[in-house]
């Protein structure tokens, strides 16, 4: 009984391992598309930090000057990520990204709306 289960387990393992060679799929994972994914994810993290910085500022943990300085730094980082991602896509799309800063401000505003509590989002 135990031996039979063991043999079946071995056969199943061989089948599962060999299956990708039977159904060939394509390139090795990784490369430009995963880099683009990383950049978008990093940009999302920056927008979250923007929102947290605003919360810390309103709670008094971060002073006004430091708030501005950190906010500028986060914007610069997000813009760099945006440009890097656009450059990565140049080969695919052909055209450069139009007005990245406006795009950035729009994204930050959208992130703020997503992350703010419901009562802050509702119009007054």
């Amino acid at each position, binding site marked *: 009984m135990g031996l039979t289960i063991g043999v079946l387990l071995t056969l199943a*393992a061989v089948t599962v391992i060999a299956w*990708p060679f039977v159904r060939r799929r394509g390139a090795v994972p990784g490369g430009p598309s995963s880099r683009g994914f990383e950049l978008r994810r990093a940009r999302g993290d920056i927008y979250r930090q923007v929102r947290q910085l605003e919360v810390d500022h309103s709670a008094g943990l971060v002073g006004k000057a430091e708030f501005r300085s950190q906010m500028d730094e986060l914007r610069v980082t997000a813009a760099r990520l945006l440009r890097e991602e656009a450059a990565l896509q140049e080969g695919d799309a052909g055209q450069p990204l139009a007005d990245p800063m406006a795009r950035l401000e729009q994204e930050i505003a959208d992130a703020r709306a997503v992350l703010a509590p419901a009562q802050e989002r509702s119009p007054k």
Partner: protein
Amino acid sequence: MADLGFMAIVLGLGVALYAAAGSIAGKVYGAAELVVSARRAAYLTAPIALAGAGALIAAFATHDFSIDYVFAHSNRVMDREFIWVAFYAGNGGSLLYVTCVLAIMSAAAIHLARRRLADSLPYTTAILMAILAFFFLVMVVWANPFSHTTCPGPGGSQVACVPDDGRGINPLLTHPGMWVHPPLLMAGLAGIAVPFAYAAGALAAGRTRDEWADAARVSGIVSWAILGTGILIGAWWAYTILGWGGYWGWDPIENVALMPWLTMTAFIHSIMVQKRRGMFRMWNIVLLNIAFVLAQFGMFINRGGPVVSVHSFAGSALGQVFLGFMLLSLVFAFGVFFWRYRWLKSDRPVESFLSREVAFLLNNFLLLGITFVTLWGVVFPLITEFASDGTVTVATPYFNRVNGPLFLGLLAIMGIGPVMAWRRSSMRSLGRWLLLPVGLAVLAAAAMVVAGMREPLAVVAFSVLAFVVLVILEEWFRSTRARARAGGNWAAAWLGVIAGNRPRHGGYIVHLAIVTVAFGVVGTQFFDQRADLVLKRGESGAVGSYRLEYANLKIEERSDRTAQLAHLNVYRGNDRIGTLRAWHAFYPDFRQASVRAGIRSTPVEDLYVVPTDFLEDGRLVLRASVNPLAMWLWIAGPVFVIGTAVALWPQPALEVRPAKAQVAAGLVRGTA
């Protein structure tokens, strides 16, 4: 079952080796099918290891004493609920358990990172599978849990046999705490391999930025939380069963679990600096390397290393195997680090000493300080034994005296850190935040002195604990108030604050758990009262403000033990406030006694009674103590778990559109 089990571990070894080699070969030669095949092989190791574990558990359940491991760790009178404990009571079974856990964690880690870390995942897979292959190999060659029982045969030979009954389980393991304490410790130590593999895999792939940081942080917190919970439950087990009235003895085996936990504590703090500021990249890799090597050191000490402990698998010959693996891990971990360290530089320098980055760094130094003080305490006796004929014991006073002030400093940093801003904080802002907590902590200290507390260190420690709690409450109050101003009630606003930054506020809840543990430690260390009592039936004796009366004794004879259950009436003044039952059993086959302390627990103090001897004239010898605030040690457990769960609970994902997506609005979407 023995056939199935052994086939499973041999198959597991082959599949893990294939997954390790196939991942690297597929990546290096650009063979996509090989990479996918190797990844699937890595997934397969989990069901294969589980099949092996299932076979061993089934063998215990059916009393299959033809398997030597089942014979050695169970018998027919063993309560069935301890089959699970018997499964990992010895070297072979515990290795099989570790292999199962590591295989499941590896499969989960590989699956969850298959998209985000696609480029480095083959290396991560190879590292995890190489570690797993090592565990399978140890079982196949040195510690097979499915080897057959042998009996003396003709001419002094050994022949396979099936004994009628087994030797039984170690009596110290027949405790509910054993259901979870060893599995959690082993899982926590094994789990450190996952963040290590993410980081080392990324370095091997040349991904030297922060790609791996998220995955390593989450998996690091998981293994850290499992290990921390295991350590706490182990302390509870020691408190209730070992009978010496304590919960932590700086035993080498306790220490080897604590050290990786402390290092991982440092890591899960400093990885936040890397994620947030692009700093401490080298430092984080070094921390992970140290934690991983310390976890291997723990395996070495635990499995037949040179230290004898109530917790270790003493007498095993596996020590050298694990020592070799630990040294190999050390060379590999730091080899990869030095190969890539030039690309691990921080994006920016530390801008101010008054910053959260520096607070985290200080926290890291203190945690590593405690780790190395503890490590020195563990290895010093080994060094002296190796260098001379004598044996030196490093006892509790060394650890308490050196680590005590470091822990106190760590608690103080725990209070100051949260009010530090990233990059820099102004003295004015800090003063505004700290004035109230510091003022109230000083007032609390004055109140303790006025109330008659004469232990300066305890006064300082309690004040620091109050300070930490007050800082957290202050931040929650201010953030909640700021949020509540936008409308809504305070409860909803507070929940919004917690949900808005789960890693930070989950961390604060964990800090509260640490404060709770420290509260219990200070209470029990500085204010405990002890008494040794010898009582006839009907006689009473005093400990602290309690009076204990020996009421009666019940004796229970079983084939494997003689158990005695003493009933004691507890009085305060003339009022009877309860009854305590303290249990003592002797297991002749093991020549070992096992006790269950009688404990009356309140938030203020524990009354703790252990029967140590039953004299022939009918008198009962008791060790009794009053342990102030002991209950808080155990209250910390659920708080710790809740805090960790909050910190790990995924934030709603921000779905950011690709840079070239031409959409007018709705560029960012939240997904729960």
